[in-house]
């Protein structure tokens, strides 16, 4: 069973603070992705990675950084959190075009 685990599941952060969202996959997939989900927008790609040490910008990267220290782990970093970054964030891993598995999501509220 493909497994993508996100932590924390819920987070409240203050404006201007630093937030790190973590993702771990046990699928041995090369590709990993960070999406955010907002009503009316579906899921939008923030950053993705082809493997350890690589990060690439997705469609909405502004205000976010990503880090892929290993095959299994992919983090999303908000250096200076803003209320507009309040959202639900999903991590996914993929071994090819047809295999993409999502985690359960992290609900982030920036106050």
């Amino acid at each position: 069973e493909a497994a993508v685990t996100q932590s924390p599941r819920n987070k409240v952060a203050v404006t201007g603070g630093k937030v790190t969202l973590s993702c771990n996959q046990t699928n041995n997939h090369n590709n990993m992705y960070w999406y955010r989900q907002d009503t009316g927008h579906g899921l939008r790609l923030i950053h993705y990675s082809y493997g350890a040490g690589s990060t690439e910008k997705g469609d909405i990267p502004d205000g976010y950084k990503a880090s892929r220290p290993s095959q299994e782990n992919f983090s999303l970093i908000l250096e200076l959190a803003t209320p507009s970054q309040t959202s639900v964030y999903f991590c996914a891993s993929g071994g090819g075009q047809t295999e993409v598995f999502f985690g359960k999501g992290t609900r982030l509220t920036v106050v």
Partner: protein
Amino acid sequence: QQQVRQSSQSLTVWEGETAILNCSYENSAFDYFPWYQQFPGEGPALLIAIRSVSDKKEDGRFTIFFNKREKNLSLHIKDSQPGDSATYFCAASEASGSWQLIFGSGTQLTVMP
């Protein structure tokens, strides 16, 4: 401009009816079209997918109809059940590059008992 568009934000059907969810896309290079199902509090999960070389894909009660010339596709859910109530996302990707999925905005389906 949205690359993948789902025309209905919400759809309500009665139990036993066929629910039809529509999707259209802009990029002719897209060649893989999955539909994801999402329940509240969960991540999206792959339901069924089709490649652009096919015009129909069936899996149990779920069928995708694909029209490459018109750049649109639809998901038919036959004999809808209350347990099918969820949000359905149409997505697309192209064979080159990172296989990143481009999602539509989703259709929230409610099946009334």
